[in-house]
């Protein structure tokens, strides 16, 4: 028996948060894109978009605290130094976007003097004063950040697929919701 091996997987709560937020963020990106293009379904989509965005903001905070408090499984040995740098940087950018997108959306509605309705009579206070010029900046910023998040999602998915199908290093095991064998076969 040698020294204890570092674990192969993220902590269970990290894995649950990852997949839950993946589904929510992807849904948000598609709802957002459909909203902007739609006349007929606009109202229904925006009524989902606002509270779901705030839920994502809350979960992003939970996830960030969790990230600070847990140790990560090591990168697979198949990842080069450069790949590891890219993976770490893109993780930071993804966290930044998970906070920035809902906050910019909330701020944008505040600056545009729109009530931030969640459901029924429940609404959030504005986080910025009503300010037309600010709205004119934040509205397109919200779109640009959303495109960036969608691009980051595609890049992330592409990298995982590349490792899974081409390098075949079982990188998905790190984030799998079910327990997996340790890397050394035990």
């Amino acid at each position, binding site marked *: 028996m040698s020294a204890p091996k570092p674990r192969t997987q993220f902590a269970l709560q990290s894995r649950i948060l990852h997949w839950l937020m993946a589904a929510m963020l992807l849904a948000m990106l598609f709802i957002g894109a459909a909203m902007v293009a739609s006349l007929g379904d606009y109202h229904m989509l925006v009524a989902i978009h606002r509270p779901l965005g705030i839920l994502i903001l809350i979960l992003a905070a939970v996830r960030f605290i969790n990230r600070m408090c847990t140790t990560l499984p090591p990168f697979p040995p198949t990842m080069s130094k450069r790949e590891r740098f890219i993976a770490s940087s893109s993780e930071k950018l993804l966290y930044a976007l998970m906070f920035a997108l809902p906050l910019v959306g909330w701020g944008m509605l505040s600056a545009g003097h729109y009530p931030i309705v969640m459901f029924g009579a429940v609404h959030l206070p504005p986080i910025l004063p009503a300010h037309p010029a600010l709205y004119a900046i934040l509205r397109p910023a919200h779109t640009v950040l959303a495109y960036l998040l969608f691009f980051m999602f*595609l890049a992330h998915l592409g990298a995982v697929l590349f490792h899974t199908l081409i390098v075949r290093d079982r990188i998905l095991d790190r984030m799998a919701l079910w327990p997996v064998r340790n890397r050394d076969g035990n």
Partner: protein
Amino acid sequence: MNASESNPETPPPLSRAGLALRFGIIGAVLGGIAGLFAYVGGWLTPHALSPTAMVDRFQQVNGTFPGFRRNHAKGVCIAGTFESNGNGVALSRAAVFPAGRVPFVGRFAFAGGKPYVPDSSRIVRSLAILFQLPNGEEWRTGCINIPVFPVHTPQAFYDLLLASAPDPATGKPDGAKMKAFIEKYPEAGRNFPVIGANPGSSGFDNSTYNGLNAFRFINAAGEVTPVRWSLVPVQPFAPIGPEPEKADKNYLFDALIAAIHRGPLQWRLVVTVGQPGDPTGDASAMWPADRKQVDVGMLTIDRIESEDTSPTRDITFDPLVLPDGIAASDDPLLSARSAAYLKSFARREGERKEPSAVSPAEVAK
């Protein structure tokens, strides 16, 4: 030595075909998701009607006036108090209806996207109101002085804008285009005579303004009632007089300003209660005239201000900003208005605006 070579699970190398297949799968997954995103975002259907297309159509017909609303461009801002009499509580639990006072801001305007159009009693007039409810909620509504909306769908309205646009050669709408339009949208053929026969009033102050879309009121017991609402003036009706000299470009607004300087103007907020079977999804279909009407309170307008100085300039009268107790109906125009107003708002808020026709000096007169 490559670390992976020491890994006992190093997989055997892939054949050329196997590698190509796997890269193909990756490309298909990424391309499929990106393609679906593009489809949902409307990039693959550029001719579908979108909020952008709707606002572009207004600019196509009216010209582009940076900083102004793309519709209802010429206007003036007002403020006042709504005194609820409590009659609305039975229909809706919205915080606007218990007996008491609620402040509001609003705007009188002409329909259309021309901010310097000379006043004419023939242009559709609007009164938009934003109720500021005590719990921080808002109720925004835009009402106009015609009895029924000419068309049923956003697409029909989009087509109407072009069909009714003045021909540059004659200055009047092209009769052939309007005929083709009415053939395509028979509801317009039915409603144009009704709208034309509506006896117009002499000014902004004695117009009835109708919120033509149906909504749903929900009361404390959860009962849902289809409703429409109107703002009925206390000021006595007077018919449209002769149009004054062309030089008096703001004569209707000037009369409104003078009236408010003399004393407050008042409108009753009247809710028409629909019955089962009354169409709620069609603003081009009137309800029978015998439907119950409930007077829920009085709007008193006592302040008027140029939109150049009023913060009301920088809000939209999005008809779907509603308090709890008032909900959208299945009317497709509501969602379309909400989306198009937001698009127009996003454009004008980033633009440098010229002074409004109804200037601060005009309002001070």
